């Protein structure tokens, strides 16, 4: 029974990682930017919700869409203010990575300065739960499942059936060819940062109402998502989602035998194992014709 409970918890955590991982992968595949500031975007969404719900008293159903829009805009802002000028100056990937770390550090410090380093809660009391014998399912479990069932098919449709979605995939596959075919790259960067950040915003909404917000809340989630992208296979979005679910399950199922403090070692151990023995990830063979 404990195992089943851990499995359910793992799926819920996995849905969260899958959302951030796919968001990260959309940005990474298109721009090749190791966008570590994605963690700061994630936390930004959380603080937006906190300001709207707790400080301004906006009801949750109205606060969530506003926060999602603000989070997407924040991701785009980072690209426009930081990455775009660096691209214009022909900066190396290393310089862009360092600037990204700068953005992450700056944002986390600003959150801490304005909102303190404490965890801020959006609501009091325990979450509504459903009991099935020994198994407890919280409202967050249900919402995570619903969100995953709605968002991933919608995203798949967007990427395969719409003009802009196809342009995003073209950019990821072959940037030069995309330019030749008349894709406006700078406009497309705005789109991938908006979509990627929006997914982070959706993920943080699930977390913020459950566990509250902290300045550095984004970093561990962002890093696990990065690992998920590697585990799933760079360049293949469903792989990133699968990697997210796999890591969520791995983290929670490991609690069956090991104490929670070993979770970091397990996740990052998995990263090292994959990087060294299977850098193409689980679904690497699907990329046989693509250059990663």
């Amino acid at each position: 029974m404990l195992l089943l409970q851990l499995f359910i918890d793992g799926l819920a955590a996995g849905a969260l990682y899958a959302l951030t991982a796919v968001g990260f992968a959309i940005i990474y595949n298109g721009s090749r930017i190791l966008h570590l500031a994605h963690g700061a975007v994630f936390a930004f969404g959380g603080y937006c919700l906190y300001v709207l719900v707790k400080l301004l008293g906006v009801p949750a159903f109205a606060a969530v869409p506003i926060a999602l829009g603000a989070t997407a805009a924040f991701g785009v802002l980072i690209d426009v203010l930081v990455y775009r000028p660096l691209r214009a100056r022909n900066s190396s990937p290393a310089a862009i990575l360092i600037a990204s770390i700068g953005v992450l550090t700056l944002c986390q410090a600003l959150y801490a300065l304005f909102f303190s380093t404490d965890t801020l809660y959006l609501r009091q009391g325990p979450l509504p739960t459903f009991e099935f014998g020994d198994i407890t399912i919280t409202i967050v479990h249900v919402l995570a499942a619903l969100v995953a069932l709605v968002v991933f098919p919608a995203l798949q449709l967007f990427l395969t059936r719409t003009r802009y979605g196809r342009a995003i995939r073209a950019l990821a596959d072959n940037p030069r060819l995309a330019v030749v075919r008349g894709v406006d790259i700078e406009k497309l960067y705005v789109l991938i940062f908006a979509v990627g950040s929006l997914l982070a915003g959706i993920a943080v909404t699930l977390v913020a109402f459950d566990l509250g917000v902290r300045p550095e809340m984004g970093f561990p989630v962002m890093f696990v998502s990065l690992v998920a992208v590697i585990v799933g296979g760079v360049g293949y979005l469903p792989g990133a989602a699968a990697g997210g679910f796999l890591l969520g399950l791995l983290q929670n199922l490991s609690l069956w035998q090991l104490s929670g403090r070993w979770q970091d070692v397990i996740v990052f151990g998995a990263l090292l194992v994959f990087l060294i023995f299977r850098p193409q990830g689980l679904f690497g063979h699907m990329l046989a014709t693509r250059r990663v």
Partner: protein
Amino acid sequence: MDYLAHLLVVVLIYASLTVSLDLMIGHTGILTFGHASFYGIGAYATAILTVYAGLDWFSAMVLAFVVGALAAALVGIPTLRLGGDYFILALFGFSLIVISLIVNMEWLTNGPFGIRGVPRPSLGPLVVQSGAGILAFTAFVVALIYFVHWRFVTSPMKAALQAIRDDESVAMALGIDVVRTKIIVFTLGGGFAALSGALAAFYFRFVTSNSYGLTTIILLWAMLFVGGNCSLAGSLVGPAVLIFFPEVFRFIGGPGWDIGNIQEAMYGLLLILLMLFRPQGLVGQRVGLRS
């Protein structure tokens, strides 16, 4: 005066870390996020060997170097073959694992409480006690590290390192064994970082897991890029600026504003602005950061 000596010792320890980081990032183009870990491994090795095993300071320092170099070789051999972003992630993962191991292996590291009471170095009857004494000791060891570094980057190997940094395929075509050279540099860098860790352990007489995590990695990168790549002077200027400048902020700030957070915000902003407007840092060379 004692406070100034304290700041100088801290600057020197960071300068020695920056110079070994520069060897990897600036000269060879190995973008490593593992430096703080080897620094921590050196500090913990020194603390464990002196406090638990009762070794003298000199043997502990030499062994710390060996342990750091071995750890770097062990990590570097499988990971240095990986392409750019993969290597960065592998080392990120490695440093998070190291922190987790330090916190969780209580039998060896005393867990989150750290290890206290690292002895001060001594020469015969002469124990280095005063602020000036420990400053002189640290300065001597750091000068040694600088000397070895300077010999290394002025040796014939320098050209090979630069070739690897600027274009790996060209380096390979020129007959340079890229992976082997990177492993040598990485091993040496790990050893030197561990040596800086030993200096920190002797100075603070206390080691704890908080000092070797992500914050330190970012601080070291900021120091390297403020000072500038490929520059002995830069590796001293960067730490000096970043240690002395925040002292100004001790006297200003809003109510409840934590100096640590102001510093962090400053490091972050500094990294962004440097990459945008002066990627070569204050006194460094303009290499590697524009393609």
